[in-house]
């Protein structure tokens, strides 16, 4: 796992910043074209510089990368399988390959990122980690890594999310983390990030912020990508071994965008591979209740980076809506913004209803219950398959759906004794 040097100059006015190997996609100060950068209080600048240097040194240190690789293999259970979904393929009219990140320890791709960041924290001599979480997957992964590496862990989670993801709150607490419900603003992921940043400004001398997605100020978008890009690197090899060629398209769901940037990273330099991200279309784009940041947002600054933001005419962040807590975020990682702006990748909204239909379909055709986040990628892929019949499409199945059973129970009325008929209806018919 290495980062490739780039020759892009820093933008003026040139700040004092240590030179070093760059970051794969970003210039030295973390810009992806017009996106990214570092819009943060001065109080955090020294820590962000320190983190950048420590990360770059770690990635160049074979001892660190070997330890990271060993943990991924022995603890997280990677490489995750590439699975050819035959029955789903039949339904879709295309050859669908699932990258089974749902089988990783803790049930999602998130473990890769936190193991990398927690190892880095230990290397930097810090004893406490903080994290924000939406669906709770990053919080659970952070609590897990903190338990494993003996670090104190505090997780900030919006009050709305602690209610809809109560099981994950219990998991985090069982793992020894302190979960702090955040009651400010919209009481969801964006406010959890605000609160984590407020903690970090006051605790930065002994605390690392385990950022949960490939967004935020430099170096987080590049740093997180470096820890999750194994998804794409593995999938590329696995796909070549299985099919003898690269896939025609690679797809993933996009909230902040860490699972997507992880799998896209393996294919972004293969121009023949189409790259498509699926955003949360919520109750539909016309309803205004969605989280489709790239499709409907405007360029702005949120949580430290210039990117697409759901905002009003005054630049106030607008609340996002999605049935999936993990996609319910009004911003998006700056590298996705760049991939969208340059046309290398396209980003398309998928509604709650389409996602839940795909959620049920995968369960019924393959015996796999995906995370509702990942079900957005599946639903979008089914649509893409209509456009590309017979194509090979690689989907990042980024997480498993156990955490979402409460939502599914309510959506499909699974608690009612209507048995077989109802579940079939759920698969075939929109609600």
């Amino acid at each position, binding site marked *: 796992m290495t980062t490739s040097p780039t020759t892009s100059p820093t*933008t*003026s*006015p040139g*700040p*004092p910043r240590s030179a070093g190997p760059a970051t794969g996609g970003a210039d030295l*100060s973390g810009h992806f074209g017009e996106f990214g*950068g*570092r*819009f*943060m*209080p*001065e*109080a*955090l*600048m*020294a*820590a962000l510089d320190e983190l950048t240097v420590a990360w770059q040194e770690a990635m160049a240190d074979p001892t660190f990368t070997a330890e990271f690789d060993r943990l991924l293999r022995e603890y997280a259970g990677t490489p995750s399988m590439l699975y050819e979904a035959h029955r789903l393929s039949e339904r879709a009219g295309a050859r669908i390959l699932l990258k089974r990140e749902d089988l990783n320890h803790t049930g999602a791709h998130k473990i890769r990122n936190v193991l990398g960041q927690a190892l880095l924290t230990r290397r930097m001599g810090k004893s406490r980690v903080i994290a924000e979480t939406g669906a709770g997957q990053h919080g659970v992964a952070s609590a897990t890594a903190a338990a494993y590496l003996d670090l104190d862990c505090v997780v900030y989670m919006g009050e709305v999310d602690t209610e809809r993801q109560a099981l994950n709150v219990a998991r985090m607490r069982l793992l020894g983390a302190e979960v702090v419900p955040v009651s*400010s*603003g919209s009481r969801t992921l*964006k*406010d959890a990030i*605000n609160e984590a*940043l*407020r903690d970090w*400004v*006051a605790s*930065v*001398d002994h605390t690392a912020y385990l950022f949960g997605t490939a967004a935020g100020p430099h170096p987080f978008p590049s740093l997180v990508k470096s820890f999750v890009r194994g998804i794409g690197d593995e999938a590329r090899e696995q796909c070549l071994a299985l099919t003898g060629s690269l896939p025609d398209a690679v797809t993933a769901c996009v909230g902040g965008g860490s699972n997507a940037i992880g799998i896209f990273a393996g294919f972004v330099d293969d121009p023949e591979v189409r790259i498509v991200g699926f955003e949360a279309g919520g109750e539909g784009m016309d309803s205004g209740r969605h989280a489709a940041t790239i499709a409907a947002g*405007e360029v*702005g*600054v*949120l*949580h*430290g980076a*210039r990117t697409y*933001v759901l*905002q009003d*005419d*005054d*630049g*106030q*962040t607008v609340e996002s809506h999605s049935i999936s807590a993990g996609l319910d975020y009004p911003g998006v990682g700056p590298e996705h913004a760049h991939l969208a702006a340059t046309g290398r990748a396209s980003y398309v909204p998928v509604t709650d209803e389409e996602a839940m239909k795909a959620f049920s379909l995968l369960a019924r055709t393959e015996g796999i219950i995906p995370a509702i986040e990942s079900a957005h990628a599946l639903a979008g892929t089914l649509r893409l398959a209509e456009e590309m019949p017979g194509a090979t499409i690689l989907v990042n199945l980024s997480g498993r759906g156990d955490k979402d059973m409460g939502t599914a129970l309510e959506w499909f009325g699974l608690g009612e004794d209507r048995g077989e008929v109802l579940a079939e209806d759920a698969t075939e018919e929109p609600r």
Partner: protein
Amino acid sequence: MSLLSEAFARARNEDRAALVGYLPAGFPTVPGSIEALKVMVDAGCDVIEVGLPYSDPVMDGPTIQAAAQQALENGTRTSDVLSVVEAVAGTGVATVVMTYWNPVERYGVARFAADLASAGGAGMITPDLTPDEAGPWLQASAEQRLDRIFLVAPSSTDERLRYTTDHCTGFVYATAVMGVTGARTATSDLAAPLVRRTRNATDLPVGVGLGVSDGDQAAAVAGYADGVIVGSAFVRRMLDAGGDARVAADSLRTLTEDLAAGVRRG
């Protein structure tokens, strides 16, 4: 000489620190915030910071968060902030906007600078914009002759202090603590060393903010700084007044007079 430089020079000539007072525009209402700020001017503030309420204020503690949220819920717009500036600057006091960056970018950096200048504003404080990303603002502020006030922090390296202060005009905003805004019972022991290090980097006046809530703390800070910046303590008085404008005005006046006496003791 800019209005801000004049305000600091006047205080220095009187051998005291300048008192800088903050309230968010639109809190509790747009006219209410104008009345409140005029009381603060009348009772002894040398410089006024008008806050632009923002949905994601990562540098603010619960007190200012609550005020900003109330202002937004009341429908406060960016254009309202400019009208508050105009009304306050009309008293002759040096008036700056304190704002997170995204609303300015959304309004248009050049347009915001032009409108701020024509409202009589003296400059802008940008808590989440450092000179690193400030290209368009550096240009617009120069064109409109607005002061640009960036923040320095106890964690700033000497190299960054030089870099940041090189891009400041008017004064430098030194954050006294590592943390968010909010009144604190004890003054920070990080502030004095930071002011000393900042003075090694620049001749600009140095104002100290975060945590000052009464005259004694103001006096302590005035002992080593050119300006004492107070925000949350004013907001707290407004919140405690519970919407009674007369109670709020009396309370703000009392606090301002206490602080103004403090900056003269230091």
